[in-house]
């Protein structure tokens, strides 16, 4: 299956052999939804994510000058496995920027360590795109937007 062929809707993430797990499979590559299409009022994922990030994020002295927003986007398959993590880094004015590699790696490791929930649509589990944002102020996680 040429997954890249389907990377055409806004926000789609195509397979990158340099970074992504070749064994990661989408259950239905032609029908990957967005989280906002699948959430319910009973969903407590934001509490879990908030707790996970705040307990796992360990600031370092070398990051003290780091400021801006990091968006972490990825895809979760129908079995609740996540892959194709992508980081977008911006200043608070939404200009492109790059954070230190060690900070990027730390954020990615945390995102990958979270057990993202399998979600359902039309009486079956579905693949979906998800993202969250961190506001980094002086190298610390000031705010989690999700």
């Amino acid at each position, binding site marked *: 299956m040429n997954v890249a062929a389907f990377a*055409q*809707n*806004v*926000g789609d993430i195509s397979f990158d052999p340099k970074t992504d797990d070749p064994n990661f499979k989408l259950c239905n590559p032609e029908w990957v939804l*967005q*989280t*906002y*299409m699948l*959430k319910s*009022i*009973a969903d*407590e994922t*934001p*509490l879990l994510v908030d707790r996970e990030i705040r307990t796992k994020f360990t600031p370092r002295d070398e990051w003290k000058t780091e400021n801006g*927003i990091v*968006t972490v*986007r990825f895809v979760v398959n129908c079995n609740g496995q996540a892959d194709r993590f992508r980081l*977008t880094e*911006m200043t*608070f004015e*939404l200009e*492109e920027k790059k954070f230190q590699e060690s900070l990027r790696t730390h954020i990615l490791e945390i995102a990958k360590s979270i057990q993202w929930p399998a979600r359902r649509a039309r009486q079956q589990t579905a693949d979906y*795109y998800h*993202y969250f*944002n961190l*506001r980094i102020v002086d190298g610390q996680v000031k*705010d989690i*937007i*999700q």
Partner: protein
Amino acid sequence: MKLFSTILLSTTFFVAIAQTKPTVDCRDISAMLDGLGRVEGTARWIRVTDSLLNVCPNSAGLWGDKAVVHIVRGQYKEGFKYLEKAVELNPIYYLGYRAWYRTRYLHDYAGAIKDLDQLEKVAGSSLVYVVNAHMYLLKGTAYKEMGDHKKALELYNTAIEEQISSKGPEWVGLYDYLLRGTLKYQMGDYDGAIADFDLEVKQYETLVDTYYYRGLSYAATSRKDEARADLERAKELMLGQGQKRWEGYVTLPDEVFLTNIEKALLRLY
């Protein structure tokens, strides 16, 4: 003569075609896109939107729609760039929208306040609704999130009073008393909070949030039985037929989760 007639006929034909060529009213273009039965963000939707933008490059609605599609899918740089274009074309509508998106998706409260100040200037009034709420409700929330509770309360008060005095009490927004009550609770004014929650219950009886925060306010004033009753009611509504202040896209400030209610109940026992 024959040649002259042919030229004349051809010219007439092309003029006729030019005159009957359908024109597009760009004011309706965003609504026309709605009429296509859109699935926002799909490749087809983007193709259609971009084609329409070629015809109507000054349609604020199209730029606004394109912005929203990108923002809700986490493409902020692109989304806010398109939103800027929409603001340039229709500031009175999109300044408020941008403020709303700044608070929800970026937690950029200072930027939102700047947009709302500009909106008030352009509109010549503060009685402007942004996503169904008085603009001062949004501005108050921005101040609250920045830690300025006093300024937030001042703005909430003005928003509610202005709606009552200029339009009538039925114009007070669906969540206005809830927002002010929650702020008063956070400021330690528990009686004031309870009074607002009583008003909120009257206009929205099945809203989980009101019972949760009123329960906390009762608990803070040692009215344990009333606190328990409200928190139990909040839980029942959350698990049953109630509603909560909620958006599928992003978590709201002071959003209530079942876990919050259960923890509050445990603290009571």
